[in-house]
């Protein structure tokens, strides 16, 4: 007989509560909807001064140990920040860099950590170059790392590398003798034309395909424990993506509620119609479930290698958050009626974010597929 013992730990310290409050205030102040829209066609998708301020506030070091210049609070502490960024569609390389830093922290030698982590705390942008397949579920790695002239050479192109155009470092997933490896490549080592920007459905985000073919690598740029770090950073990526998506679900909900309480049709505020009211309540419930699962995962996560309960928590959070935002964005457009079909309606931002966000570190079905053996066998 199956007996599951579900882990039901959830806690939130006063310190985290303070971070959440100040992060929310910061993101609201820096990223009103006019600012968000003004950045849609910009090159990098963010304002340098806002990013500089986040670095100055110590956010880029929050998750990293003190010995590398961080404040040692662990990656769980970034969840309230990331949620707030999602809430106000505030885009910077923060999420991208936070995930990549965790790869170095978990997969690097002490020497490798000392070499790269302090610069990330100071604002260097690091980005994961993982995808070279159609999907997160694909196990095959096309990019290869092979020995050459006493060093190594990369061969292959990586897809949708986040914030690639502003990245200082790339962590490239490559296959070496059939085994996965993570390699640190500095942006300046890339040949001219290696980065080709993509047109994303979410215009607030930036990503590019990056061709690493011919880039030569020294042995000390290969992370020592890639296999373990990979599993963990994929889960951390999923959790951060879930947090950002959940903040955006709340934003979609707020925008929708605003419309439902001001727009009149047939002589009544449209929010009084149950056909609109009940699905809107559903958005709230779905978003809140995602939030519950995210803070549960944030409670479990630590600098140590992630255990089974934490894996379950991260995957559940991403599956729930993805579905919640897809629903919220979809209904936000529909319930705005004719307005919802226009580019001027802010629901546009949320429905597009939903399509992009679901594919960050695996969609809901991908995570449920991987949850099945953890929960059922």
């Amino acid at each position, binding site marked *: *007989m*199956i*007996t*599951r013992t*579900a882990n*039901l730990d*959830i*806690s*939130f310290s*006063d310190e*985290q*509560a303070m971070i*959440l409050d100040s992060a929310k205030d910061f993101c609201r102040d820096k990223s009103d909807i006019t600012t968000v829209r003004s950045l849609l066609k910009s090159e990098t998708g963010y304002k340098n001064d806002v990013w500089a301020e986040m670095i100055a506030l110590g956010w880029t070091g929050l998750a990293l140990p003190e010995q590398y210049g961080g404040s040692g609070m662990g990656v769980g502490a970034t969840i309230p920040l990331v949620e707030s960024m999602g809430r106000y569609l505030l885009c910077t390389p923060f999420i991208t860099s936070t995930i990549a830093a965790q790869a170095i922290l978990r997969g690097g030698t002490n020497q490798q950590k000392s070499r790269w982590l302090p610069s990330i705390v100071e604002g260097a942008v690091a980005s994961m170059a993982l995808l070279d397949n159609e999907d997160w579920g694909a196990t095959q790695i096309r990019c290869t790392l092979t020995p050459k002239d006493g060093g190594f050479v990369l061969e292959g192109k990586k897809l949708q590398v986040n914030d690639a155009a502003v990245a200082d470092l790339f962590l490239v997933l490559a296959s070496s003798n059939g085994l996965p490896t993570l390699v640190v490549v500095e942006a300046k080592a890339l040949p001219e034309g290696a980065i080709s920007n993509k047109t994303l459905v979410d215009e607030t985000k930036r990503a590019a395909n990056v061709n690493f073919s011919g880039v030569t690598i020294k042995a000390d740029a290969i992370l020592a424990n890639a296999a373990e770090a990979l599993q963990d950073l994929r889960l951390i990526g999923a959790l951060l993506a879930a947090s950002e998506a959940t903040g955006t679900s*709340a934003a979609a*909900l707020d925008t929708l*509620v605003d419309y*439902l*309480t001001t727009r009149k049709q047939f002589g*009544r*505020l449209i*929010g*009084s*119609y*149950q056909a609109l*009211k*009940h699905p*809107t*309540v*559903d958005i*709230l*419930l779905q978003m*809140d*479930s*995602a*939030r*519950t*699962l995210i*803070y*549960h995962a944030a409670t479990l996560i630590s600098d140590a290698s992630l255990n089974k309960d934490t894996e379950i928590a991260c995957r*559940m959070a991403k*599956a*729930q958050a993805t579905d919640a935002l897809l629903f919220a964005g979809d209904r936000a457009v529909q319930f705005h009626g004719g307005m919802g079909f226009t580019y001027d309606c802010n629901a546009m931002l949320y429905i597009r974010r939903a399509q992009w966000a679901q594919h960050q570190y695996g969609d809901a*079905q991908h995570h*449920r*597929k991987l*949850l*099945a053996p953890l*929960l*059922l066998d």
Partner: protein
Amino acid sequence: MTENSQLAGQQSINGAELSDFLKGIIDWIKHNTPADPGFLLPQTFMEVGSEQVLDFLREWQYKVWSAGYLGMAWPKQYGGGGMPRLFQQIADEEMKRARVPICFNVIGLGWAGPLIIDTGTDFEKETYIKGILNAEDIWCQGFSEPNHGSDLGSIQTRAERDGDEYVINGSKIWTTLGNYAKYMILLARTDAQAERRYNGLSFFLAPMGANGISTSPIQKLTGEYGFTETFFTDARIPASCIMGEEGHGWRIAMHTLQYERGAEAGAAGGVSILSIVMDDLLKMAQDVERDGQPLLQDPITRDNLVKFLIEEQALYLGERRVKIPALCRDYPNSLALSGKLRGTEFFRRMRQYALTLQGAPGALYVGDDQAVDGGFWQRAYLNNFSTTIGGGTSQVQANIIGEHVLGLPKD
């Protein structure tokens, strides 16, 4: 109304005492859990539909009480155990885990009893408490009325003072155990002129044997019985049956709701509901086969089960998150107000899915020798509607959340 200090369980308890107690209850459950009676036992007290089931449950509750595992924290002189509440909580936890039958006199054990102990007179305690515990006196509840659902402000049943008596006229519906009950906690209107409709209500401990009270059983969706409609036609009850003062009925009724948290809040304890959780569904998916393979290996089934497990996990975690104020500041009261809607709707869909998974035998019903688990899931699914409809339908719940949490306009 103040918390009664003799119930608060302030005595200090040492660890050895607790572990001895735990050993004792586990052992007692092992030796005293009744054998399968050959008929389906109720999952809730709303499903007692025959004398056979009633006798069985009465005997069981008596047994639990005489062993000292019911009303453990209630005062000794009235039939309780006079112990700290913690012991009852432990006993309840163990009985729930072992899936022993329910202690069915729920309105007495969880509503009327704690109310009487907290606020009743010595006479009331003498008269009612022991019979609640040993299941001699079954209690029912008369709040809901036909056509008013759970809107208590609209109660029409009248109670008019006439000398030493109140004369009751009107009717109540969804009276669980109505045809077996000796007493009813009754909410009736004593002042039709009250400015606010909640102010005109009074709360009574009414004897169901009074002349002029009659019940008519309601056949449920499941085909079984368990509720009655209850009629009052110039029914006369002693004026002393009133709890508190005239006009305070609504407040007292609301006060009784706090005991829903179980022994921790002052209720007598005992298992009041046999919960059906995802583990039960997983076990069924393991047992049911398709082409010689457990259904649990089918990819589509697995995906559906994982969806339910995510929902269940969020539900249980939500019950914990609601106690962390910093995680509830956004959309205040969202979690607190949505608990019933989430929980009851989840279980409705989950129980229905069990019937789908059963394959062709899913079409069978209680009484058929090939029904899976004797039709347990069929009955559980249909009975679940008592929770998505009773106490405010899911649709009313959604209105409440939409209006109070999101600020959407009323319709």
